[in-house]
C-alpha cells in the first residue's frame, strides 16, 4: 500500500505515453494437448463403460471364441486364430471403436459446456442489478479503459468489456473472464476508481495482456480437464461399484492413473498460469513504459503463501514478479513442458491405435499398420508442440538441454508404458514380461530423437531473412523429427515384441535389419535425408569445407570398396542361403558403418569451438550420403562381378544400409555423444588429410571387425537365417500335439464288441489322463427342452435315433481332475458304444450343429434359470476314421458373476463302434485361459487316439 492509496486521486497519469506492445505469445499448443488429453480420457472412460454395461455383448463374442478354442483371457490371440478371431470379435470391436470415439468426443464437449457454464455463472455474479451501485461519474474510468484498449489495438469485437465491481459483488481482485466465442470481460474492483490512475492503468493493461494472449480459455479448459478426468472414470464404473474387489482388480491401476492425471493437470495449469502472470506483468510494464508501476501495485497487496500452497498457486510470489529474469523463459520447452507433451502424445497413440485396431483389424492383417499410423499421429503432435518450443529455447543466450531431453525421454517412455485410464491395458500387458527391455529400448530411441530435435532446433534458431528458406527449413525439420520419432519408436516396439514372441536374439536382430525393407520404414532414410537437406537450407549455400568433402569421399569409397570386397572375395557357388544371408547383410552393414564414421568425423571436423549441436544436421546428411554412395558403389562392384542381377537389389542396396545407419546412430549415440562432447572441448584442428585418412581407416577397421565376427552380436551372425526360417515355420503351430495313430492290422477295429471288450478298451485311459484324475460316477442322462424349437427338435431326434439303434455294448467312464480356474475341477467322460449294424450318426449330428448355433438351455442354479449356448464345429483329430468335434460354450451369470461352461465333444465312427469323448469345465468370473482350452483339446485328441488304437 502506498500513500497514493490513502490519498485517492482521479488525476490522470502524467508524463508517460502508452506504447503499443506485442501480445504475449499464445499457448495454442495447450489447446491441442488438453483436447487430446480429454479425448483420450473420454475414450478410456467410454471403454470402461462399454465393458461394465456390456454394450458389445461380450458374452456372445466370448462364447464364439471359446467354442472355437480361443481364449479371451489372453493378451493376444494365438497366431492360428486370426480369421476366426476376427469373425467372432468383428461386431464387438466395431461397437467398441465407435463407443471409444463417442467418449473421445463427449468429454471435450462436456468440458466446453462447463467452460460456458462457468463463464455464465461469473456473468450472473456480475449481473447488472449488482452493478447499479457504481456511481455514474466513473464514466471517465470507462473512457480511460477504452484508451488503453485502443493503445493495444483492441477494437471492435476484440475489445473487452470493462466491469467495475462494487463491494456487493465480493470482487476484491481484478480478473479477466470470458465465454468461448464471446467478448472477454475485464473485471476491476470499484476500489481502483479511488486510487491513482497509474494503478488502474497497470492493472487494466495486465488484464489486457491476458486478453491478448487468450489465457482465459485454455486455463478454463485445463481446469475442467483436471476435474473431469477422475469422475468420468468413476461414472463409467458405477455398474460394478457393488463389486469393489473386481473393480479394483480390473480398474485399480486406471483409478490411480486418473487421480494422478487430474492432480498433475491442475499442478501444470497452476505452473503455466504463474508464467503467464509474469508475461502479463511484462505486458503492463512495457505498455505503460513504467516498470515500477506494477511493483507499486504488487507491493501493496502481496500475500505470503505456504510452500505446499505454492504448488497450486496460480500467481508467483511478489518477489519473483518484481524481479523477473530470463529464468522465466526457460520453462518453455523445459522438463515439465516436454514430459507433459510426451505423455499426452503417447496417450493419443494408445487411443488412436485402439480405435484403428478395432476398426481396421479386418482391413489389414498386419497389426503394425494401426500401430504405425497411430505413432505417426502421436509423432506429429509431439513435433508440432516441441519443435517450436525448442527453437525458441535454442534462441536463448545459453540454452540448456539436459532438462528438455530428460523430459522428452521421460514423457515418451512413461506415456507409452502407461495405459489410458479405463481402457484395455492390452499393450502394456503384452509387454509386461519384457518391460525392462522395452523401457531401455524406448529410452535409447527417445534420447536419440531428443538429440536430433535439439540439433535441428538449434539450426532453426539461427537468424534468416528469407521467408521461403525459413519455411522450407521448418517443413524439413518437422518431416525429419516426425519420421525419426515414428521410425525409432515403431522399430523399438516391434523389435521388443518380436523378442517376446520368439525369445531368440537372432530373430530379434533379424527383425531390426529387416525393417529396412519394410513397406513403410524402407523410405525413412530417404525422408530424413530430404528433411535434413531442407533444414540445412536455413542458411545461404556455402561451399562445403574441404575437410567435409574429403571425409565424405574417402569414407564412401572405403565403405563401398570394403563392402564389395567382403562379398566378392567370399562368395562361392553352392553356398547355402544362411551363408549368403550373412554376406549380404555384412555388405550393407559396412556401408552403414561408413556413414556412421562420416557423420561423427564431419561433426567433429566441421565444428566451431564448443558448438557441435548446430552442425549435427549437416553431419547426419553427410552420413546418409556416404551410406547411399557406398551402397551404390558396392552394388556396381558386385554387379560387375556377376552377382545381384535382380532388379530390386540396387534399391535395397541404398535403402537398407540407410536404415542400418539410423539403427547404428541410435544404438551408439550414448557412446558417440560422449566422444563428441569430450572432443568438442579441444580446439578445432585443421588438417584435411588427417581427418580423411583417419575416417577412412576407421571405416576399414570397423569393416574388418564386422567380417571377423566381432560385431556379430549387434549386426548379423551365422545362423540368423536359420533362426528366422524356424520362426516363420512356427507361424501356424499345431493346436495340440497328436499321437500318431497306427491301427493294428491284426484285428478289425470296426468289429462289434461285447461288454467286456468295450470295458477293456476303456481300461487304460489313465495313461493319457492327468495324474490326479479320479474315477467318478456316471451322471444320469437328461434331455432338457432347449430353445429355439428347431434346436430342441434336432437334439431330440439325435438322441432318439441313437437310443433306438440296437447295440451289443455301451460302456462309459467318467473322471474328474483339477484344472486351473475351474469351479470344482474339470470332467471327462469317455464311452464306447458298439452297434449291431454300421450306422452313421453324423448326419443327425450335423443337423443339430446347424440348428443349435445359438441356443438356450434351462439350468436352474444360474441366474434367470438358464444358460446361453453356442456350438460350433471344431477341428477333428488326425484319424483314419470319420469324426466330428463340437465345441460348446455356455454362458450365464451365477449370483451376479459371469459364468461360462466349456465343453469339447468328439465322436469317432470305427465300423460298428462309436467312440465319444467329452471334456468340460465351469468357470466363474474369469474365462478359461488359452492354455486351459488347449489342455481340453489335447485331452480329447489323446483320449480318442488312445481309444481308437485300443479297440
Amino acid at each position: 500500500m502506498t500513500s497514493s492509496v490513502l490519498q485517492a486521486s482521479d488525476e490522470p497519469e502524467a508524463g508517460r505515453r502508452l506504447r503499443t506492445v506485442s501480445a504475449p505469445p499464445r499457448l495454442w499448443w495447450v489447446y491441442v494437448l488438453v483436447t487430446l488429453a480429454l479425448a483420450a480420457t473420454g475414450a478410456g472412460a467410454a471403454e470402461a463403460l462399454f465393458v461394465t454395461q456390456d454394450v458389445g455383448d461380450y458374452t456372445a463374442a466370448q462364447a464364439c471364441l471359446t467354442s472355437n478354442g480361443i481364449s479371451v483371457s489372453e493378451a493376444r490371440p494365438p497366431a492360428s486364430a486370426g480369421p476366426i478371431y476376427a469373425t467372432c470379435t468383428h461386431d464387438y470391436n466395431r461397437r467398441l471403436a465407435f463407443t471409444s470415439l463417442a467418449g473421445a468426443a463427449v468429454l471435450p464437449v462436456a468440458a466446453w459446456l462447463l467452460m460456458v457454464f462457468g463463464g455464465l455463472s461469473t456473468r450472473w455474479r456480475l449481473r447488472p442489478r449488482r452493478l447499479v451501485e457504481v456511481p455514474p461519474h466513473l464514466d471517465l474510468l470507462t473512457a480511460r479503459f477504452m484508451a488503453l484498449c485502443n493503445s493495444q489495438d483492441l477494437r471492435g469485437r476484440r475489445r473487452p468489456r470493462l466491469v467495475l465491481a462494487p463491494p456487493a459483488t465480493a470482487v476484491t481482485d481484478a480478473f479477466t473472464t470470458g465465454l468461448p466465442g464471446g467478448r472477454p470481460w475485464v473485471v476491476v474492483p470499484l476500489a481502483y476508481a479511488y486510487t491513482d490512475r497509474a494503478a488502474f492503468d497497470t492493472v487494466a493493461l495486465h488484464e489486457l495482456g491476458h486478453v491478448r494472449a487468450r489465457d482465459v480459455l485454455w486455463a478454463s479448459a485445463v481446469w475442467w480437464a483436471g476435474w473431469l478426468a477422475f469422475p468420468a472414470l468413476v461414472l463409467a464404473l458405477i455398474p460394478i461399484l457393488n463389486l469393489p474387489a473386481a473393480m479394483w482388480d480390473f480398474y485399480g491401476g486406471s483409478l490411480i492413473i486418473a487421480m494422478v492425471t487430474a492432480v498433475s493437470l491442475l499442478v501444470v495449469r497452476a505452473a503455466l498460469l504463474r508464467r503467464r502472470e509474469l508475461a502479463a506483468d511484462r505486458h503492463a510494464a512495457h505498455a505503460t513504459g513504467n516498470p515500477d508501476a506494477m511493483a507499486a501495485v504488487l507491493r501493496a497487496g502481496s500475500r505470503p503463501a505456504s510452500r505446499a500452497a505454492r504448488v497450486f498457486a496460480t500467481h508467483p510470489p511478489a518477489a519473483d514478479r518484481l524481479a523477473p529474469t530470463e529464468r522465466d523463459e526457460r520453462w518453455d520447452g523445459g522438463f515439465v513442458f516436454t514430459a507433459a507433451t510426451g505423455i499426452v502424445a503417447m496417450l493419443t497413440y494408445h487411443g488412436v491405435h485402439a480405435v484403428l485396431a478395432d476398426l481396421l483389424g479386418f482391413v489389414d492383417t498386419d497389426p503394425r499398420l494401426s500401430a504405425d499410423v497411430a505413432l505417426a499421429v502421436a509423432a506429429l503432435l509431439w513435433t508440432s508442440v516441441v519443435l517450436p518450443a525448442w527453437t525458441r529455447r535454442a534462441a536463448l543466450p545459453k540454452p540448456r538441454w539436459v532438462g528438455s531431453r530428460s523430459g522428452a525421454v521421460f514423457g515418451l517412455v512413461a506415456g507409452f508404458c502407461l495405459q489410458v485410464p479405463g481402457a484395455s491395458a492390452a499393450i502394456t500387458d503384452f509387454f509386461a514380461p519384457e518391460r525392462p527391455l522395452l523401457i531401455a529400448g524406448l529410452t535409447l530411441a527417445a534420447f536419440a530423437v531428443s538429440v536430433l530435435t535439439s540439433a535441428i532446433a538449434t539450426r532453426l534458431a539461427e537468424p534468416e531473412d528469407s521467408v521461403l528458406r525459413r519455411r522450407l527449413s521448418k517443413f524439413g525439420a518437422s518431416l525429419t523429427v516426425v519420421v525419426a520419432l515414428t521410425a525409432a519408436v515403431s522399430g523399438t516396439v516391434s523389435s521388443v515384441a518380436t523378442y517376446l514372441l520368439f525369445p531368440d536374439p537372432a530373430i530379434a536382430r533379424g527383425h531390426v535389419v529387416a525393417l529396412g525393407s519394410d513397406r513403410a520404414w524402407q523410405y525413412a532414410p530417404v525422408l530424413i535425408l530430404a528433411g535434413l537437406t531442407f533444414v540445412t537450407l536455413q542458411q545461404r549455400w556455402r561451399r562445403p569445407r574441404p575437410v567435409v568433402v574429403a571425409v565424405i569421399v574417402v569414407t564412401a569409397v572405403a565403405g563401398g570398396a570394403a563392402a564389395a570386397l567382403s562379398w566378392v572375395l567370399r562368395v562361392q557357388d553352392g553356398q547355402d542361403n544362411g551363408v549368403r544371408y550373412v554376406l549380404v547383410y555384412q555388405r550393407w552393414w559396412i556401408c552403414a558403418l561408413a556413414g556412421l564414421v562420416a557423420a561423427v568425423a564431419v561433426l567433429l571436423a566441421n565444428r566451431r569451438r564448443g558448438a557441435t549441436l548446430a552442425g549435427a544436421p549437416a553431419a547426419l546428411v553427410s552420413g546418409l550420403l556416404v551410406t547411399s554412395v557406398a551402397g551404390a558403389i558396392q552394388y556396381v562392384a558386385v554387379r560387375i562381378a556377376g552377382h545381384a542381377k535382380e532388379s530390386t537389389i540396387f534399391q535395397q542396396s541404398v535403402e537398407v544400409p540407410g536404415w542400418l545407419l539410423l539403427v547404428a546412430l541410435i544404438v551408439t549415440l550414448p557412446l558417440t555423444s560422449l566422444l563428441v562432447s569430450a572432443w568438442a572441448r579441444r580446439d578445432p584442428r585443421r588438417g584435411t588429410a588427417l581427418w580423411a585418412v583417419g575416417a577412412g581407416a576407421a571405416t576399414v577397421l570397423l569393416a574388418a571387425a564386422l567380417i571377423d565376427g566381432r560385431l556379430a552380436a549387434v549386426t548379423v551372425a551365422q545362423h540368423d537365417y536359420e533362426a528366422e526360417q524356424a520362426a516363420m515355420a512356427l507361424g501356424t503351430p499345431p493346436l495340440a500335439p497328436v499321437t500318431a495313430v497306427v491301427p493294428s492290422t491284426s484285428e478289425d477295429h470296426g468289429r462289434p464288441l461285447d461288454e467286456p471288450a468295450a470295458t477293456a478298451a476303456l481300461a487304460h485311459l489313465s495313461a493319457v489322463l492327468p495324474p490326479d484324475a479320479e474315477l467318478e460316477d456316471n451322471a444320469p442322462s437328461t434331455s432338457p427342452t432347449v430353445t429355439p424349437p428347431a434346436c430342441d427338435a434336432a437334439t431330440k431326434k439325435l438322441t432318439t435315433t441313437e437310443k433306438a439303434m440296437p447295440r451289443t455294448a455301451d460302456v462309459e467312464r467318467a473322471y474328474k481332475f483339477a484344472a486351473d480356474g475351474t469351479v470344482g475341477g474339470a470332467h471327462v467322460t469317455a464311452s464306447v458304444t458298439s452297434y449291431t449294424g454300421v450306422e452313421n450318426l453324423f448326419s443327425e449330428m450335423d443337423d443339430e450343429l446347424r440348428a443349435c448355433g445359438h441356443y438356450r438351455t434351462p439350468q436352474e442354479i444360474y441366474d434367470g434359470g438358464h444358460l446361453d449356448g453356442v456350438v460350433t464345429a471344431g477341428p477333428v483329430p488326425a484319424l483314419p476314421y470319420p469324426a466330428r468335434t463340437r465345441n460348446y460354450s455356455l454362458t450365464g451369470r451365477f449370483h451376479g458373476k459371469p459364468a461360462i461352461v466349456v465343453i469339447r465333444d468328439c465322436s469317432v465312427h470305427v465300423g460298428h463302434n462309436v467312440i465319444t469323448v467329452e471334456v468340460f469345465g465351469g468357470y466363474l468370473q474369469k474365462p478359461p485361459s488359452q492354455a486351459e482350452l488347449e489342455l481340453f483339446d489335447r485331452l480329447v485328441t489323446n483320449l480318442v487316439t488312445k481309444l481308437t488304437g485300443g479297440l
Partner: protein
Amino acid sequence: MTEKARPEGAGREGVVLPARITVELADLAREVVAEVAPDQLPYFALVTAEWTAGKEPRKPAGAWSGGEIGLGTDLPLLSNIIFTVLTGTAGQVLGAAGFAGLQRRRWWRRRRTARPAQLVLDVDRIDEIRDACIVHAQTLGLNEAEATLLSDAVHGVLRRAADGGRL
C-alpha cells in the same frame, strides 16, 4: 452514533469528562476515512452497507470455474481494510468480551434487527488502541509510515470522542 458519555471524571476547566466511551464502529471508521482519505467516502459508504449487512468485504470472489484469471493481489484501499483493522485492534486490546460485540454478523442473522457494532473503551486505553492499530495495519500490508498515519487518525478520533466531541 456515539452514546452520551457518562460523567465519571472531571477534566480541565471543570468539564466532567467520561472515564469510558462508547463508539459505534461504523462512525469511527467513517471519521478515520474522512480524515485520511476523504475522496473515498462515497466508496466507503458502499463498503459500510455491506459490512453492516453482515457480509465480509474482503472475502475473495469464487473462482470455481477456473475461467477467471486474476491479478493475484488485492488493493488494500483504506475503505476496504479499515473495518478489519478496527475489529482486530479491538479484539486485541479489549479481549473476548469487547470483541464479541464486534464479530461479523452471520447470514442467518441478517433478518434480525442487529444492534450496531459498538466499541466500549476506557479512556485510558486509547493509547493502547493506537499501538495495536499500528501492528494490525502493518499485518494487512501497510508500511510503517502508512500504519502510523492511520493509527494516529484513529487515536485522534477516539481522543476527540473522549474529550466530548461528536463523531
